[in-house]
């Protein structure tokens, strides 16, 4: 594997399946009473979060701690960043303290890629602006494989039909998922209001549709995206009510899905906007499983990036 995990596009099919298989083996150990493994003892992982996050930051922290790494949490609030320190200076400071991996979330697209040029350790992208969030895509792929094909080792997601619905424009989750899922052989369809479809979406390895009800009848997975009002600088749809009526998933729409289909959401949810509460809490929803799988997927990623000799850097 590369030294860094910046984009889901960096992963080959074999590498992605290796991460999913490693996750599967770790998941089988997660039920046992002692859940701490000694593998990354003595390594330091820095959680560098320039944007608010609960589940991703705690998930990475739990993953690193379960592998016995030392974790330093660094958030922009209450740090030198609030005094105006640049990303580069922060990176060099962390570098001077000797860190083996930096997990970074930043509001600027490309921040993780830029950081990777400045530090010698591994960089894991935990979300950069509206660009990518590869570990979210990995945990989604793992959850799909677990629920739809019984979690068989060695398999991709060949032929699985995935419909991603909502604010694709602002969603790094959607981009990473399209890239990873198509690498794994799934057929992805994006459904969104035309105003929330990204520029040049026709170059993405997926189909595009504007009619949710038609797509729901022939999909195995429906992934609802959060309407990211904090990133919206203009009016992308007339009203929340109109959005909900055309692109929200309620119990009536859920009934259109084939019997085996699952409902996913990367969280945090806007209940009553893109997803109705009764859908989010239904047995078809994998939202809670996604969170617990998230810790294990991130353990697998940290293990594969840091557990071996790497491509020469660490000895």
């Amino acid at each position, binding site marked *: *594997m*590369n030294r860094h995990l910046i984009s889901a596009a960096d992963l080959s099919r*074999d*590498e992605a399946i*290796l991460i999913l*298989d*490693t996750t599967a*083996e*770790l998941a*089988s*150990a997660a039920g*046992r009473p*002692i859940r701490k*493994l*000694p*593998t990354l003892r003595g390594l330091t992982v820095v959680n560098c979060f320039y944007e608010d996050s609960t589940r991703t930051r705690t998930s990475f922290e739990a993953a690193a701690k379960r592998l016995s790494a030392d974790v330093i949490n660094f958030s922009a609030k209450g740090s030198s960043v609030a005094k105006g320190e640049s990303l580069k200076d922060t990176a060099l400071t962390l570098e001077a303290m000797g860190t083996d991996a930096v997990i970074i979330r930043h509001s600027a697209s490309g921040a993780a890629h830029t950081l990777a040029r400045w530090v010698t350790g591994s960089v894991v992208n935990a979300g950069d602006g509206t660009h990518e969030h590869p570990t979210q895509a990995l945990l989604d792929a793992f959850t799909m494989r677990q629920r739809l094909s019984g979690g068989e080792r060695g398999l991709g997601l060949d032929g699985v039909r995935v419909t991603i619905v909502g604010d694709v424009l602002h969603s790094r989750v959607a981009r990473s998922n399209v890239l990873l899922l198509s690498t794994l052989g799934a057929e992805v369809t994006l459904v969104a209001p035309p105003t929330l479809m990204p520029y040049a979406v026709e170059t993405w390895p997926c189909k595009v549709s504007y009619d949710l009800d038609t797509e729901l009848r022939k999909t195995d997975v429906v992934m609802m995206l959060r309407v990211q009002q904090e990133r919206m600088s203009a009016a992308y749809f007339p009203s929340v009510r109109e959005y909900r009526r055309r692109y929200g998933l309620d119990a009536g729409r859920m009934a259109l899905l084939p019997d085996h289909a699952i409902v996913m959401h990367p969280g945090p949810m806007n209940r009553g906007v893109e997803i109705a509460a009764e859908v989010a809490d239904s047995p078809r929803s994998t939202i809670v499983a996604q969170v617990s799988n998230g810790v294990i997927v991130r353990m697998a990623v940290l*293990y*594969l*990036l*840091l*557990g*071996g*000799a*790497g*491509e020469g850097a*660490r*000895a």
Partner: protein
Amino acid sequence: MCAMRPEPGHESGAAQPGSWKAVLTPEEIRRALSRIAHEILERTHGGEGVVLLGIPTRGVYLARRLAERIGEFEGTPAPYGSLDVTMHRDDLRLRPARPLRRTEVPPDGVDGKTVVLVDDVLFSGRTVRAALDALNDLGRPRAVQLAVLVDRGHRELPIRADYVGKNLPTAQREVVRVLLTEKDGEDSVLLGERDQ
């Protein structure tokens, strides 16, 4: 990424013909496993509370064979499983990250049991040390014993096998290969030289 390189001096897999010398025939492997099964029964007073845990890959097949043998001799097969030691190895940083293997413990667990670890080749002893640590995470066995098909010497840790199929004096540069029908299509133990 993560290329699976074979263990140094402990390689398994299909052998090239010619450069390898067979040191155990299928018949001899069968007899050695039968003898080990009898010894386990003898040492544990009829196999009471015995759990066989194989170390992947080939140790798991050997554990299953021993469990079946014990079943033939005593009527009830011994519970068996597999124990992945990757995350507990002391040489992880020496090469690219390795894929994890499966850990499966019989439903009754290992607490209070006599666990017999099973591996194909005993060499430096480092795999067994990692196995003892991994086992520690699963519970507290009453006793832990070690069964190996081949003991080739050159220990780097104070570890000794309780049950040995064959003691095989080797030179450090030599390589021992264990082939098992379940994985390799034939039963055989081969001795060869490295870098051939």
